[in-house]
């Protein structure tokens, strides 16, 4: 089943060269893909388009069966609630809220029943090994722990797709390794994952497929390469 379908997607900002140009991409359920490329190659723009945070200037974006490029702010927000979980480089946790409150937030915004949401949050915190920090504030946690909280929050509404934007970019190597294992585990459990990173080792460790972007275009797609190689054989 196709979870992400991009057809001839372009995104331009003002008069300059497009951030993305004529990108077509298809991601199947359970796949873990890594999007790599240098700064300014269009990685974040592509991630924003898949997350419904931005809209393409041309082409179509379909995620989990929904055309999200035609949705308004409210529609795409509703879609994100149920369809997408996001992990950011700098965690983007709310410092005024406890770990538990941070994790609960997506369910609360979606209007989920309190008891059910609390059970799910407790289960996630337990699974991710941070249950003891439930009442703590994010500022007291290590980088790895904070990213675990972010992962828990991203998974709260059981999204079809997990997007990770440089998830180890702000972590030391030990914490980065911790997050890498976590993402691997999630992939192993069947979670569809899109990973944007500079880190080749993270990409090769976590992703089954790598896409390289250069100047807004797909320079290489390991899946296509494999298909081509199979065809040659």
């Amino acid at each position: 089943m196709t979870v992400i379908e991009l057809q001839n997607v372009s995104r331009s900002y003002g008069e300059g060269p497009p951030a993305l140009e004529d990108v077509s991409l298809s991601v199947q359920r359970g796949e873990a893909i890594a999007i790599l490329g240098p700064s300014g190659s269009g990685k974040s723009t592509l991630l924003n388009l898949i997350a419904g945070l931005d809209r393409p200037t041309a082409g179509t974006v379909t995620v989990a069966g929904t055309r999200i490029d035609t949705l308004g702010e409210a529609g795409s927000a509703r879609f994100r609630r149920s369809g997408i979980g996001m992990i950011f480089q700098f965690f983007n946790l709310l410092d005024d809220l406890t770990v538990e409150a941070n994790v609960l937030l997506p369910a609360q915004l979606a209007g989920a029943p309190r008891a059910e949401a609390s059970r799910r949050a407790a289960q996630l915190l337990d699974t991710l090994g941070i249950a003891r920090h439930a009442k703590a504030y994010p500022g007291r946690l290590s980088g790895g722990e904070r990213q675990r909280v972010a992962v828990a929050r991203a998974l709260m509404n059981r999204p079809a797709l997990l997007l990770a934007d440089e998830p180890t970019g702000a972590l030391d190597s030990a914490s980065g390794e911790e997050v890498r294992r976590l993402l691997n585990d999630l992939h192993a459990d069947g979670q569809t994952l899109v990973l944007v990173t500079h880190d080749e080792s993270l990409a090769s460790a976590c992703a089954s497929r790598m896409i390289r972007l250069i100047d807004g275009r797909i320079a290489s797609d390991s899946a296509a390469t494999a298909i081509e190689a199979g065809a040659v054989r």
Partner: protein
Amino acid sequence: MSTLGGVVRSGIGRRRVQAVVIMLASLITATATVLAGSLLIASSAPFDRSFTEQNGAHLTAQFASAAATESQLSATASASGVTGSEGPFRTVTATPVPQGGRGPGMPAMTVVGRADPSNATVDRVKLTEGRWATGPGEIVISADGGLRLRAGLVLTFPDLPGSPSFTVVGIARSVSRTADAWVAPASIDTLSTADRPSGYQMLYRLAAASSAADIDAGRDAVMSSLSQEALLGTQSWLNTKATSEQTTALFVPFLVAFGLLGLIMAVLTVGNVVSGAVGAATHRIGVLKAIGFTPKQVVWAYIGQALIPASLGIGIGVVAGNLLTVPVLVETEDLYGTTISGVNVGYDIVVVVATLAVVILTGWAAAWRGGRLRTVDALAVGRAPAAGRGRLAARLSAVLPLPRPVSLGLAQPFARPIRTVAMVAIVGFGSASVTLGIGLASSMAEVQEARTHDKAPVAISALRQEGPRPEGPPEITADPAAVVAAVSAQPGTKGYYGLGETKAAIVGTSGSFDVMYFTGDATIGGFVMTEGRWFSGAGEAVVPTPLLTATGSRIGDSITLDVKGSLVSVRLVGEVFSTENQGMQIFTDLGTFAALSFKPFQYRVALTPGTDVTTYVDALSPSLKPLGLTPHANNQDEESEILIIINSLTAMLTVMLIAVAGLGILNAVVLQTRERIRELGIHKALGMVPRQAVTMVISSVVVAGIVGGAIGVPAGMAIHDTMVPAMGDNAGLTLPRVVLDIWHPELLVLLAFGGLAIAVAGSLLPAGWAARIRTATALRTE
């Protein structure tokens, strides 16, 4: 462009919303200041100004034509102490009805034959509508006669031979109150008959006219060359002035208070907006210092950023204030027959300088703090509030059974306690202003209602009289029993009373007092008691507070009146609210003066509900005509004009105060939303829809709205309840309870939501912005 200029320009460009808020707050401040100042100017001695402008008559004298000739009267112009005169003008008293016979009956009016007085030496009567009467059949009506007539109306005088008709061609005001109507000199012949000959009116300016003794001396000088029988009556400008100023004297303190409140509120808010805008830029101040700006340059850079939009706002505000003021002053001009220029350049300059000074001072105070911060400390101040603040509130609000966007919003103010306190103060001041404004307006209306005595809708007065009487109505000579019988027999009569007036001295006290005597049930006249009860029969009296004070009496005491040489003792049984004749009045039963054979001058009739005044007057008229009486509508709404002016001004000021408070909140919420933009991006990335973003932002001001309202409304009430009796005391009056009892439950409920409404209204714009901002943009913002 200098480096400093560049920083100022880029600062304004980066903070457009704040620049607009500063501009608008300054605009409203300047507008409110001009308007409030005009309010004070308009309420300051309007009689004196219009008297000077019209060169009003110090002494108005009526003469009998049978006892003085025109040349004799003209010669009085050179009497000792007379500095100017107009006349003699022929004058008659006649009773008109509107043509067609329909419409409320009208009282007898003093008509003066006078050519266009616009260039007269004395009493330059001012036209407020239409033109002066120049030909036969044309009449100009006094705007002070209590009759709401318009140009074009035709008045018929049915009692005169041939029932002559006159078309109203103009409405005019004489500050000296010299006539009820004017016609061209030749037209007086049409209005006079052999049995009702015309008299003469002379108007005098006197060299000394500041006291009653001066006026008496002037009158004696005029009369030195005339026989005493020639003089029918005189009118002193001092009495006219006293009557006129009764209208404004009580209201002036209200106007001053409200005007000052408007100014204080506007200044506080513009200061708050400017200091908030500068205070929020601490991080940028750090950057400027890091690249080499001196503290002085930093301060001027931020003063400049406030000063440019403020100057624009003040300029527009002064123009707007003058434009708004003109129609209000035109109303005042109409009311007093004076001319007031709406544009007072000197005052405008004061407003501009003072408002700019406030902007500079508040901007300087805020920027000075930033300028003095160590660069490293200024740089360390980020956009977001310091971590740790407001966590308890966030925790507590999270457990409330409320939608999450609401609980998130409710917790936000606790992260910035100082700003929240400022927001509460703005809402509190706004609520207090609105509460006080509404309270003062309600109290003024109650004062006006309470001081308007004699409110029965129908009046009955003598149909004809022997000659013009400048002061007081003609005495009714008909048998009172016959009058009462006619009135009682008329369907629609609810009650009636007769009233008359005489002068009295009080034994042991100097001066002359007005005695109002009544027959029948005078309580239907709307007299409001402040203490005790209305008199119930002969020998009892009620008096206003000033008379109690002047005589050192209390309720229950007896005073002795000297009326036309007869000593009459009355017991004071109540204190009545009255501002007429400075409260030097005595109200008693006609029976008190049984030995003096007094009769009522007029009757008043109250009607049963649903009875039409015109129909009633038309039906009663035939029964009264044989008695020499005429019924007519008793118009008591002449003073409502000043209430209209005051109400429109207070309404404008109230709206402006609300707008200024709303701008203060807007500014605070814009700062708050900007600081939390990244949080907003996170929320949106997690699925917060625009409606929820709006809810969160609006919820963030709910606490300030409720607390500000909870403080502001009682504060406004307390100020009102302290101020109003103090104003009464200043005027030497005990105000009736009803003037203070204005806080009805439904009004309080409305006011209680006022603070919340101000806060929510102020947050709507940034809430909309929060809803619209794209998630990716919000997340990128540092």
